[in-house]
């Protein structure tokens, strides 16, 4: 079980309020991703839940019991750190056994759980090595193994993939998602990478400056961002935000259109512009279109087969119902 409730949780460092009063409920078995730009307080929030930082106000409840004053070890949560935080002088086996040893668990039970975790994480061949002899991905798995054997109420991940190279990151992303499906344990995952958030989350919490901007499933956030910040943060390449007469014509301060919702034509369309840089990914091509009179640059995602050169004239047409409208405060106009 792992239902975590934050009630008016606040964090101040001296005079600086890092997290203003914040309410959030994380349901049992959910995969929740905290996402936001660096310095938005997402790691601090995770550390508050873990108990590694003291809250300045408010209450944290885990499975209905008050956990605000509990020390980290008593909260029944396991954390995977960005630097993995493996114990360098212990073998993989001892690293994984450490939390159980601290809990005074019988040796046979320890062995059983270690073997189990090693099997799940493909670590059986490495149990007697030291962390220094492992690759980044393997170290990451050891860190997860150390978390699994405790059978915690929830797993906390603090940017666990940011030290891995791109290919490994995709692999580990899948492994963590599969692990979640198999264990069905609550997971809270902190990242600044919106791709990780979109691909893994059941529920995304977008944070900015300690405030929750929006909570929702990945597709909710993608389809109906509540404000300009979420609109610009979720989706890659980022949404084109257009101000000025074109927006006013639609009774909005700003209108937004995602690059994939623009139709490209070389003969006619709603907006006219000049092709700048083209980024060919094979399946898709991203065109940077200038001189549209809408914004500095409009990004368009077109099929990989579309042939346009630098300096060509293009016409862009937004797809029906895909335009987002925002008011002066940046809030979505329904």
């Amino acid at each position, binding site marked *: 079980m792992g239902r975590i409730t934050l009630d008016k949780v606040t964090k101040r460092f001296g005079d600086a309020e890092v997290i203003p009063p914040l309410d959030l409920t994380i349901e049992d078995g959910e995969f929740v991703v905290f996402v936001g730009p660096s310095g938005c307080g997402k790691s601090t929030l995770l550390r508050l839940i873990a108990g590694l930082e003291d809250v300045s106000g408010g209450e944290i409840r885990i499975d209905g019991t008050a956990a605000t004053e509990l020390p980290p*070890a008593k909260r029944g949560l396991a954390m995977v*750190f960005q630097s993995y935080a493996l114990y360098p002088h212990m073998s993989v086996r001892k690293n994984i056994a450490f939390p159980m040893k601290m809990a005074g668990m019988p040796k046979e039970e320890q062995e059983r759980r270690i073997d189990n975790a090693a099997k799940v994480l493909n670590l059986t061949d490495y149990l007697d090595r030291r962390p220094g002899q492992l690759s980044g991905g393997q170290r990451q798995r050891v860190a997860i193994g150390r978390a699994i054997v405790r059978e915690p109420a929830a797993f906390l991940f603090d940017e666990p993939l940011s030290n891995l190279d791109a290919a490994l990151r995709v692999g580990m992303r899948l492994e963590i998602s599969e692990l979640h499906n198999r264990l069905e344990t609550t997971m809270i995952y902190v990242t600044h990478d919106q791709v990780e958030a979109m691909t893994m989350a059941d529920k995304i919490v977008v944070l900015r400056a300690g405030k929750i901007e929006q909570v929702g499933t990945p597709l909710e956030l993608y389809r109906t961002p509540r404000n300009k910040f979420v609109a610009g943060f979720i989706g890659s390449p980022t949404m084109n935000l257009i101000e000025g007469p074109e927006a006013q014509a639609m009774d909005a301060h700003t209108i937004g259109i995602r690059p994939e919702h623009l139709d490209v034509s070389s003969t006619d369309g709603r907006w006219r512009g000049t092709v700048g840089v083209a980024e060919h990914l094979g399946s898709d091509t991203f065109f940077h279109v200038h001189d549209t009179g809408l914004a500095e640059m409009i990004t368009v995602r077109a099929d990989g087969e579309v042939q346009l050169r630098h300096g060509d004239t293009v016409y862009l047409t937004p797809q029906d119902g895909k335009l987002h409208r925002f008011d002066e405060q940046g809030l979505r106009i329904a």
Partner: protein
Amino acid sequence: MATQHSRSAARVMISPAVLLLLAWMLIPLGMTLYFSFQRYNLLMPGAHPWVGLMNYKLFIQNPAFWTALINTLLLVGGVLIATVVLGVLLAILLDQPMWGQGIVRILVIAPFFVMPTVSALVWKNLFMNPVNGLFAWLLPKLGMAPYDFLTQAPLASITFIVSWQWLPFATLILLTAIQSLDSEQMEAAEMDGASALSRFWYITLPHLSRAITVVVLIQTIFLLSVFAEILVTTNGGPGNASTNLTYLVYARSLLNFDVGGGSAGGVIAIILANIVAIFLMRAIGKNLDA
């Protein structure tokens, strides 16, 4: 250093330094060896006949030799244990954020800047003196008789004085090592349910093993040759209760004017120091491998 030319140029350039170092070390060593095989006593002028291993035999057969050997090991061992144990504890203490941290750190390091003769004399006259010393004043207040430290426990007192001098060194090295400990490791251990004591035992201490090795090795080199502290406090006495090998060599060559015997003692001290070094490297040298 890529080309043949630059390599040979480099050799030519460093050769004066190498030659100087060689001369600096080899000539004294050679002369010590040379004298150690002669009967060479300043009180008996005249010829210095070769006597083979006589000087070595006499030095080892001297009952003071074994006492000195044991005293040397006790002194080195005692100071190592005291400085490492207290050094670890002090380093942990100094690592805690506190008010006036900078000044406290400087104060802790200060004893290291006091030269050995001065610090030993300060301890002898101002603290341990059975009549005028601070302890002689303090102990009766606690209902105890004044204690003549340097007479009744000479070796322990010297061990204490030397430990006081070397504690800052150990603390400083261990403090820098503690500061390099990854804080996420500590937090992970905290999440894993380790108590403060377990965290110290399973995380901090293993992390410090390399620094402790460095402290032990460096201190051993200097502690094997402790001399000034003994000279100014007990003169190796009472009897030879606080005589170590260095002091015995000094007594032989400069108090008995026996150059040959002193040289033989010096060579024996070199051999013993190397034996200690081999044991140390066997025991803890593996900690230095990355």
